């Protein structure tokens, strides 16, 4: 089966093999107050969400899950979405991934419509639950997207091994999902989303169910991975420190109707470590996110 245009072939993994050492600082340094910096998108726009609205027709009336959402995300950005429950974060991600049709507005991904991008396998989607296939071993789970996309068996094997190593799960190839802890399963699902080297990584609260320590660890790993591969990441979270630690930009959303209330720049150097969470810059951004979240919550009362 010919692979549709847009799918990165084996050569696309070059970025992984030669890690990007030079951190992208753009023109901000850690000593400048980061949120003052206005990000200029240096690489082409990866995701362009324009005037997107989505209304669900439910038994007890209409729910405006997204209302007039505008957002541009540059290639290689790490954008976090944060907001109270029900503000449309999941819905927005699903619209971008063409899992749901907007009622109005357009989504462009790498210059294509969302549907073309999906057919071209541009998305690696990580759900809140690992959603592994219980009858497949861990290795077979990793291979599933590769099988569907027509990679050769040797390539499948190599990639499965490489990405299992990436998430520190060497030795678990033959195990079945139920033999792994929740955190391990989630790591498998992340490896699976990366295995075919999609341009975009969409992650919907991937670490929601994990304890703080595992979460910190996975945050660091995800950051390294992002720095190495320069993928565009869209990341939903409920944790302010997580969002500030990981992101180049934080999108604060608010419910009823679901909309963007604030977009906060957050350019810490790419090679940051967890220690930056103690710095005043970090605290300042976290405070601003918190204020934005509060404003959203006040609509509940």
């Amino acid at each position, binding site marked *: 089966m010919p692979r549709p245009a847009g799918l990165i072939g084996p050569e696309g993994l070059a970025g992984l093999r030669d890690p990007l050492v030079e951190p992208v600082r753009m023109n901000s340094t850690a000593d400048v107050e980061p949120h003052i910096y206005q990000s200029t998108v240096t690489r082409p726009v990866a995701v362009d969400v324009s005037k997107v609205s989505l209304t669900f027709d439910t038994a007890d009336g209409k729910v405006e899950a997204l209302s007039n959402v505008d957002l541009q995300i540059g290639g290689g950005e790490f954008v976090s979405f944060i907001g109270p429950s029900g503000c449309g974060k999941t819905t927005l991600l699903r619209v971008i991934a063409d899992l749901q049709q907007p009622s109005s507005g357009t989504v462009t991904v790498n210059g294509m419509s969302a549907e073309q991008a999906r057919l071209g396998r541009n998305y690696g989607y990580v*759900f809140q639950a690992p959603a592994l296939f219980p*009858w497949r071993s861990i290795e077979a789970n990793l291979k*599933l997207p590769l*099988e*569907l996309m027509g990679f050769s068996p040797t390539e499948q094997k190599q990639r499965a091994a490489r990405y299992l190593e990436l998430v520190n799960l060497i030795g678990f190839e033959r195990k079945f999902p*139920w033999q792994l802890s929740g955190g391990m399963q989630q790591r498998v699902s992340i490896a699976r989303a990366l295995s075919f080297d999609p341009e975009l990584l969409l992650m919907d609260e991937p670490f929601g169910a994990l304890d703080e320590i595992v979460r910190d660890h996975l945050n660091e790993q995800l950051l390294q991975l992002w720095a190495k591969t320069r993928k565009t990441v869209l990341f939903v979270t409920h944790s302010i420190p997580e969002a500030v630690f990981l992101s180049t930009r934080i999108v604060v959303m608010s419910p009823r109707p679901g909309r963007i209330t604030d977009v906060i720049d957050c350019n810490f150097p790419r090679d940051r470590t967890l220690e930056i969470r103690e710095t005043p810059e970090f605290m300042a951004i976290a405070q601003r996110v918190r204020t934005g979240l509060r404003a959203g919550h006040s609509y509940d009362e």
Partner: protein
Amino acid sequence: MRTHPLVTRNAPVVTIVAVLIVVWYVGAVLMNLSLVRGGFEREESPYTTMELLEGTMSAERPLLPAPHQVVGAFIDGVFGYAPTAPRSLVYHSVVTLSATLLGFALGALLGIVLALAIVHSRVLERSLMPWIICSQMVPILALAPIFIVVLGAIGLQGLLPKSIISAYLSFFPVTIGMVKGFTSPDPMQMDLMRTWSATSRQVLSKLRWPWAVPYLFASLKVAITISLIGAIVAELPTGAEAGIGARLLAGSYYGQTIQIWSALVAAAVLASGLIAIVSYAERKVAQRMGARA
């Protein structure tokens, strides 16, 4: 004193079987009593209670044969003749079994094909489903003779008409089970397949089929038992010379109750054997699919 685990495990079953046997013996005595007494009185020979009781246990054509008579006839039917002899239960069982298996295979196949069609098209679901359900509302006892006669008129005889009746009965649980199974995948896994832009054939083979496997085996267990019933019923209306149904029919013509009961035992043994085979396959498949030990 600790009881042996084998005892603990089997005690409930053994108890129930023992109770049933006792009830059966009591029933045999009560039901055959007047028959036996009538026999003595017709011959005007004196009899004791002991003789009366013995008579109820060994009548040639009892209303209800005693368990040992049935078991004796069964063992005799299985081992007492060459497997090809017309009096051999093995012979009749094989005849019925082959119709059952062919019918089961046809029915399972038809059931799966119908389920696939229904899952893939809403229109087909709406147009097929009412007919599928209607097909099962007609009593098979009424339908079987029609089938056999019509198929006989176009030259189909022997194995195939019986199998068709088996298939007619057994496709139904398979269709219902597989429609449920094919539509049961986790929505999140469906979404994943979509983000990988899998074709609908890939979704079927990599996601829908594996989800449907437990449903498949559950419905196959039902299907194989009713296949057997279908084959036996199909042997009744034509007065077939061979098969468990033929033995039942012949037994009831000539009042050979023991023969009827031993044929029933043969049917029961076949049914449990068939179910055991399906269950074994189910366990093996579950193991291969990584089920928890």
